[in-house]
């Protein structure tokens, strides 16, 4: 028996970001109830303050890394990195949401509470060191996101989106849970480090075949969350139907957290079956890149284009995961950070441009945006260039590091095919830019107003971050490289 079960102060500090998010979420929820429907206030400043406090807590907790609460979470550099990515994604989503909700007359504290709870789940996922925590974190993150996807419940598209996401998501989680049960049956533990020790110990009698099946079952759960082929079908419909700021958040926050937990689980717990797992990821990565990029070519709805593009980008990150090396992990981390900013930036433009009821989300509606609002068009182009991977943007270095890591691991075929498919991707991104700059403005441009302050801050922050990551990538990459070693 252990001497004391009481957590120390350092352990509380390691859980502080989540604690702040939970407490503020609950306060927002109560404030909403107290205010009543008459005197509603915009509660987004409180949500922003909470996220900034959680970011500060993450930095503070990173100064004293280590496990907490009986090894349930491990607040190390890797966890801190993904906490920051998730929190940044959440911050930008809140900034976009404020004006969006006012426009749709759906401003309420519950929205922000759900967003904060969802981020809590993702922060827990980034640091989870135990399969039980993985499951609970994933459920918290997912259930909050399901509700957010259907938040404007009078809108049929929202309903469709939430229902599809919920049904398929629950199904995927069941697979994950089944895999966890198998792992517990094989190793007698749910702690990642203990699983690793048991599996690497030749006397434990753990069958690699059984472990492989368990790992594959868990992979189904994760692959759904990152929308990897063949579990990607939900993404376009859900992203199209959900409110634009929610789609922005969904494509960055939950995805980054799912990658974080996938990397940690497979690198920490399953080194014994590394070869078989690499083959599986190889196939998934290739399929995800090809399906995402080719399906996006035929789309005319902006949100669907961005949804397919987000599938393709999950494929690039999977290439880095396939590399199965420290540089690969670091490249995946860097890419997810860069991707969060450029993709939320792009969705922020869509959120601004679509106007009340999301009437204008077709590609042709963008015609002549550059004449009416040159700044918005220029920022949108920057995000699109970054998504293509043009130099001086974060997307360029992200892709560069990913394919470099793949070549270092001898994945020449996957690299060539990946580069070819990202060349295909340039077509549909450039098409958006062409429509914005070279088409005459139609009458859809008459009702456009200048972006709300929240959207403007989100746009400029994302643009700045995208450029910073493109010009000075070493700052983030160095941190990713030092923390990538931790999960091995």
């Amino acid at each position: 028996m252990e001497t004391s079960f009481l957590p120390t102060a350092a352990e509380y500090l390691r859980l502080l970001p989540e604690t702040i998010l939970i407490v503020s979420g609950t306060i927002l929820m109560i404030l909403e109830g107290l205010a009543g429907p008459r005197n509603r206030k915009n509660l987004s400043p409180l949500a922003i303050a909470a996220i900034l406090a959680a970011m500060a807590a993450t930095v503070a907790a990173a100064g004293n890394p280590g496990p907490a609460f009986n090894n349930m979470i491990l607040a190390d550099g890797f966890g801190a990195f993904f906490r920051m990515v998730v929190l940044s994604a959440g911050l930008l989503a809140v900034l976009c949401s404020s004006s969006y909700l006012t426009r749709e007359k759906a401003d309420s504290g519950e929205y922000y509470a759900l967003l904060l709870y969802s981020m809590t789940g993702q922060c827990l996922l980034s640091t989870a060191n135990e399969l039980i925590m993985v499951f609970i974190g994933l459920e918290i993150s997912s259930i909050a996101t399901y509700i957010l996807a259907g938040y404007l419940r009078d809108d049929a598209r929202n309903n469709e989106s939430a229902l599809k996401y919920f049904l398929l998501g629950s199904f995927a989680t069941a697979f994950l849970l089944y895999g966890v049960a198998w792992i517990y049956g094989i190793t007698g533990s749910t702690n990642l480090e203990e699983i690793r020790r048991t599996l690497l110990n030749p006397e434990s009698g753990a069958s690699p075949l059984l472990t492989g099946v368990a790992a594959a079952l868990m992979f189904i759960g994760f692959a759904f969350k990152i929308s990897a082929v063949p579990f990607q079908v939900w993404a376009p419909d859900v992203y199209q139907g959900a409110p634009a700021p929610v789609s922005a958040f969904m494509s960055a926050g939950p995805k980054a957290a799912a990658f974080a937990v996938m990397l940690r689980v497979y690198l920490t717990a399953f080194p014994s079956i590394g070869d078989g797992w690499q083959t599986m990821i190889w196939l998934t990565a290739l399929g995800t890149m090809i399906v995402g990029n080719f399906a996006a070519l035929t789309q005319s709805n902006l949100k669907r284009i961005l949804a397919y593009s987000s599938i393709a980008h999950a494929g690039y990150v999977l290439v880095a995961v396939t590399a199965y090396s420290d540089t690969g992990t670091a490249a995946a981390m860097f890419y997810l950070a860069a991707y969060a900013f450029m993709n939320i930036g792009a969705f922020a433009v869509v959120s601004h441009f679509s106007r009340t009821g999301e009437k204008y989300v077709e590609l042709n509606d963008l015609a002549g945006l550059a004449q009416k609002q040159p700044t918005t068009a220029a920022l949108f182009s920057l995000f699109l260039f970054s998504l293509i991977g043009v130099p001086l943007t974060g997307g360029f270095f992200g892709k560069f590091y990913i394919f470099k890591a793949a070549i270092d691991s001898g994945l020449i075929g996957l690299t060539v095919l990946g580069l070819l498919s990202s060349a295909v991707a340039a077509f549909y991104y450039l098409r958006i830019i062409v429509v914005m700059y070279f088409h005459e403005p139609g009458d859809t441009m008459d009702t456009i107003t200048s972006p709300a302050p929240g959207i403007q801050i989100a746009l400029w922050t994302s643009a700045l971050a995208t450029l910073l990551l493109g010009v000075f990538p070493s700052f983030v990459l160095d941190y990713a490289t030092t923390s990538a070693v931790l999960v091995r």
Partner: protein
Amino acid sequence: MDPILFFIFAAVAVICAISLIVQKHPIKSALSLIGVMGSLAILYLLLGAEFIAAAQLIVYAGAIMVLFVFVIMLLNAGEEKSPARPSWFAKLLGIPLMIALLGILSYVIQRAAPEGSLAFGEYTGGAREVGRALFTTYLLPFEITSVLILIAILGAVVLAKKEL
């Protein structure tokens, strides 16, 4: 005695599970599910896990199934009509794929079954052990689950209240 009871209730569980899928009326499916839950509880009991057996009965066969039946009654769901054009995909692939999955799973379990598996009545996990584990080692997951439940309540309020 134990093996005989095991096979009886294992058979009941499998039959009820098949009946759950085959039945056309939702209430009959729900009742079959209660059969599955109940037989599983007895299997746990045979292993010596009284607490899990009780939890299985109270939570699954009790609370959750009542909710299921309640929803079915509330929606007044009638007999399921078979679709006009059954999907050829499901017909052609469904059963072979199911048999394949079953085959793979039983092969893997057969091959990898650890030596000296648990015998009947050997499991020691009473309420005391479960409680101790929940409030010491697994304190954080236990507490964090409350957030999960809170989100579910909040979601129900958001999606069902009168005006947004």
